[in-house]
């Protein structure tokens, strides 16, 4: 009985005393320190408040091989509305939280991790706003970085190879460059179709949409949802894998409402026209980004396809995406190469 009582007490302590600071989410300016939001019970351990729910996406944006943990927070008694083919319409006061880190050694998780930054999308009265907090060397606090930050760091990968990277925490404007839809900031990830997968929550394994319904943070989701495939899943059709990868890595800018709409190259999942997907499409204002090649995609000839050239490049004047990447995503490049070869 005593035990039950103390559990109850801990529960109360967790859910009430440590509630998220709703006022700060809505405030006009961002606080200096991440901990002030009280998203986490323990910031350096990244142990979330009970109302801050972890989630994963089926296919994710490449960010220099960093790992990401995501959480969603919706204020009490409110729900995000389902929107077809788009992200949930989150209510005012919601927050999307994403922490980027490198494990010290990918072969040995027990060696710990280096937290890099925690990015926030905060749903204010006027719409979404984006900001990032960079972790200090002591790894016990993250500080607001309006103008971004360069973190020169390293980690050991699965092959035991030492990797170094000039990791860039994006500035506020760079957040907007990708999160721009029709001149407004918008989340990219949490579309119903992108979270339609199992996740091992602390209270068991559930489909994330089912779990979000049970936790009453969304109002609905369709039963007949067509979801993208996990691009890393080699059992799936390569066309589906590539389209899924291009959608989440390129489609936020390369779509009719995105920042790169002037290019006419559209890589979001709903695009069906060959020319707009890049097949025998000439570059428009590409400059040396063309690499001397004539078309975005030449079926059967990955080595003559601008799309692949720009994915591989590490030159800031050539590489795609324009920001958020300093390394080449070798595994994705190989997949796209195979795909173009087989077109």
């Amino acid at each position, binding site marked *: 009985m005593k035990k039950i009582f103390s559990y109850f007490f801990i529960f109360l302590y967790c859910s009430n005393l440590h509630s998220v600071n709703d006022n700060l989410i809505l405030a006009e300016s961002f606080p200096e320190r991440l901990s002030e939001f009280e998203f986490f019970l323990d910031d350096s351990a990244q142990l979330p408040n009970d109302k801050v729910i972890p989630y994963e996406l089926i296919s994710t944006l490449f960010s220099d091989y960093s790992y990401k943990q995501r959480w969603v927070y919706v204020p009490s008694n409110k729900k995000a509305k389902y929107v077809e083919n788009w992200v949930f319409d989150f209510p005012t006061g919601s927050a999307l939280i994403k922490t980027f880190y490198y494990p010290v050694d990918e072969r040995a998780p027990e060696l710990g991790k280096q937290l890099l930054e925690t990015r926030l999308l905060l749903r204010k009265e006027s719409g979404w706003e984006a900001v990032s907090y960079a972790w200090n060397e002591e790894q016990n606090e993250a500080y607001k970085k309006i103008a*971004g930050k360069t973190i020169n760091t390293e980690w050991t990968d699965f092959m035991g190879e030492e990797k170094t990277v000039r990791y860039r925490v994006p500035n506020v404007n760079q957040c907007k460059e990708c999160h721009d839809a029709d001149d407004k900031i918008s989340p990219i990830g949490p579309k119903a179709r992108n979270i339609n997968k199992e996740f091992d929550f602390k209270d068991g394994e559930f489909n994330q949409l089912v779990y979000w319904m049970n936790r009453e943070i969304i109002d609905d989701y369709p039963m007949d949802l067509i979801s993208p495939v996990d691009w890393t899943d080699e059992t799936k059709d390569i066309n589906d894998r590539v389209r899924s990868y291009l959608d989440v890595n390129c489609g936020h800018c390369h779509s009719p409402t995105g920042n790169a709409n002037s290019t006419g190259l559209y890589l979001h999942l709903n695009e069906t026209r060959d020319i707009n997907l890049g097949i025998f499409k000439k570059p428009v204002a590409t400059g*040396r980004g063309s690499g001397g090649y004539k078309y975005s995609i030449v079926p059967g000839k990955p080595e003559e396809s601008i799309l692949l050239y720009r994915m591989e490049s590490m030159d800031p004047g050539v590489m795609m995406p324009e920001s958020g990447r300093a390394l080449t995503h070798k595994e994705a490049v190989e997949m796209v190469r195979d795909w173009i070869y087989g077109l």
Partner: protein
Amino acid sequence: MKKFNIFCISIISVLLLNINAKEVFIEPGPNEHERLQEAMILLQEGDILTIKSGYYSFEDGLSLDVSKVTVRGEGMDKTILDFKNQKSGAQGLLVTSNQVILENFSIMDAKGDALKVIGSKGISMLNLKTEWTGGPKSTNGAYGFYPVESEDVLIDGCVAIGASDAGIYVGQSKNIIVRNSVAQYNVAGIEIENSYYADVYDNLASHNTAGILVFDLPDLPQQGGHHIRVFDNQAIDNDTDNFAPEGNIVGEVPRGTGIIVMANSDVEIFNNVMSGNGTVNLSIVSYSDETDDKNYYPHPKKIQVHNNTYGPSGFDPDLETGDLAKALYEISAGDMPDIFWDGVVPLSQMILGQPKEERLVLNEEDTTSFLTISPIKYMLGFSSPIRTDIKEFEGKITPLESISIKTF
């Protein structure tokens, strides 16, 4: 009258000024990138950011997303923003906000484009310079000045040097003035592409591959470029070998071209000086590549050319680049004209003739040489399918209205 206008604009500007507006100063020194970028983010409407004179070296690009602000240096040769050590960012400076004034600084050696402006309603670029300092190289960035999908664009008193595509490039925009500017040692000096309502005047375009280009391309969100006036410019001595990376449309432009119009309508070209262009002074052509774009019209129409001055041209045709110079050289048997029209029109018009109001009008001095191809004769295999009598193209000039842009 002009003075009165300026007076009115000043009064309105003062009245609209935010009383809380502040002026922010940035000086060169440690953390200069972070200080400048943070200042650009924290600006508020009405603010002025002054980048003090000096040399700034940046490893990352800069961006501005606040509307109704001024960012200025202390002179294009005094405030130098150098990007040759750039490690991230696809351009030197990116602007994505409205009613912005940029003036009096230089952007050097950006890894991609020097100054890109996306979707801005009201952007004034005054007395700015963009330059790649290593001379014409295909590894230079594509564009010096690059406003795209923007409205009310003013480029005034600017200098663009060394771009591997276009020094001054306005794409998919509306209401544009480019004036008093200098474009040198670029592939294209000044290019207006897929745009509506532009005045390009009092500019010098020299030592580029081609001086001034008015283009329209398919498969883009905004096409059907029209209402472009190109006047009082000097398009002279464009003699730099084409150094555009292959795959780019300007890579097909021959060295030594003064002005080219491709696939636009309602273009008026007058009072310009075109001289010293080794291939051709003025070229009016259709988009010649295949396209499945049903909404695209690949031919120039309603083009009016008058009162221009033509100096020597055609003395050093670039037979290496693209097909245009080579074809012209063969057809003219080496006697290159001042003005070339490819004569290509839709098939129905080849047979029935062009509607009168769509025809090319050339009102130039009798000494101006001209060549066009008669497609019907060409197709039927006539031995001389060309026409060279410029008098056949004389007609009434219907002047296009001048462009006024919203000032702020």
